[in-house]
């Protein structure tokens, strides 16, 4: 690709194939001397500039980095040749030294590539085992358990079950008139005298609503029995206790409402 003959008099050098100014400079330097450390920067500058000039004659547009390098090298050359004072000459020499060192480092890296390329490379000169064996066994028999998920599961289950059940109001067990009649008939015989109607209510009923219902049923049952003449009822005052006793013979026959 690099069709070039580096010659001080006639340079037929194409920029094609060079990866940038440094690449070209290195190629020019290599042609100069075997030892990159001993190259002549001035000669190198001249060669570079003439290559660039030649290239510009063929092709007007050149990538900026080629021209930047050319301008910098021209400036460096002028400083090296015609220093205005000794301090400037020193600076120019330092810059030239840096350029030489950059070229030397690029050359070293190229040598490293050569060295690496000579190494037997895996997949090219040497091969690894094509079918490695795996001795890793995954044991999935164990059980990962923690308490929180267990408890959460329980609460979730209960909650979900609760959500599924339709809401039913608590069923009231109401003391019917029939219940009260039976209870009154059974208890009244054992009562010697007036007794409070509330005495005849079932003891096990504690709910206030159910108690009121039982009281009403017992009153209705009492009235019912009074109508048949079995008992008599009396109430001394409005909202006072309602009293009740078994009717005996022809005695008083007033009943409270």
């Amino acid at each position, binding site marked *: 690709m690099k069709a070039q003959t580096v010659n001080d008099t006639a340079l037929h050098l194409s920029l094609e194939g060079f990866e940038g100014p440094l690449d070209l400079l290195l190629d020019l330097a290599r042609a100069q001397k075997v030892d990159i450390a001993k190259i002549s920067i001035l000669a190198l500058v001249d060669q570079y500039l003439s290559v660039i000039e030649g290239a510009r004659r063929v092709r007007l547009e050149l990538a900026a980095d080629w021209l930047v390098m050319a301008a910098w090298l021209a400036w460096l050359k002028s400083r090296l040749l015609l220093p205005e004072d000794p301090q400037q000459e020193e600076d120019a020499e330092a810059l030239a030294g840096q350029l030489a060192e950059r070229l030397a480092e690029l050359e070293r890296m190229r040598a490293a590539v050569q060295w690496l390329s000579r190494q037997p490379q895996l*997949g090219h000169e040497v*091969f*690894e*085992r*094509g*079918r490695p*064996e795996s*001795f*890793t*066994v*995954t*044991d*999935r028999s*164990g*059980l*990962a*358990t*923690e*308490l929180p*998920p*267990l*408890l959460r*599961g*329980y*609460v*979730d*289950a*209960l*909650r*979900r*079950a*609760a*959500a*599924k*059940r339709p*809401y039913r109001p608590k069923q009231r067990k109401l003391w019917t008139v029939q219940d009260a009649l039976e209870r009154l008939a059974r208890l009244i015989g054992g009562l010697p005298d007036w007794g409070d109607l509330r005495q005849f209510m079932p003891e096990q009923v504690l709910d206030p609503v159910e108690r009121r219902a039982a009281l009403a049923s017992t009153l209705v049952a009492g009235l019912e029995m009074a109508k048949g003449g079995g008992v008599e009822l009396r109430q001394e005052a409005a909202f006072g206790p309602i009293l009740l006793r078994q009717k005996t013979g022809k005695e008083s026959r007033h009943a409270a409402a």
Partner: protein
Amino acid sequence: MQPPEPQDTQDDIRVETAPRPGEAPVEHALRLAEALIFAADRPVPLERLQQFLPAGLRAEAVLTLLKARYAGRGVELAEVGGGYAFRTAPDLAPVLTKVVDAPRRLPRAAMEALAIVAYHQPVTRTEIEEIRGASLSQATLEALLEHGLIAPRGRKEVPGRPVLWGTTPRFLDQFGLRALTDLPRREELLAGESTPGLVQAA
């Protein structure tokens, strides 16, 4: 890393390498067979090896020698699935086997059923279903049994005499409990909840 063997395109190409200076042809063939079988990503058929051997050498003979050379070693030459491959000596494989524990988790249904058994034991399957408000699959029950987390605790004296289930010592062990009383009480779990159904369910 290696792309598939370009088998078909090269079956008819003979490539030979020369023995190194001072190397007997048989020794060279042995080395070649060894490297070829080592580097191949699948068992190497006899014919494939034969392709690379000089005309006078039979692949069978080379492989018999190679097999003998590896006999009793940590790696052995084995004939498998239509070809030859190196294989770790059977007595060493268990030593080299590395076991990586990857414990499973119980599925949600199993976890819920287990929790209900823990809190309501002894309990029948039907009772578990009533409490969960969902049916309990046989597989779920069997998973709990298989892991030794629940066990039968007699039968309930009702028609059909269903099995009663309870948790096992292994259950306590698995969940890091010393006793069932280490479990939080139901009221603690449901603190602040007054869903009427919950009271009934309990």
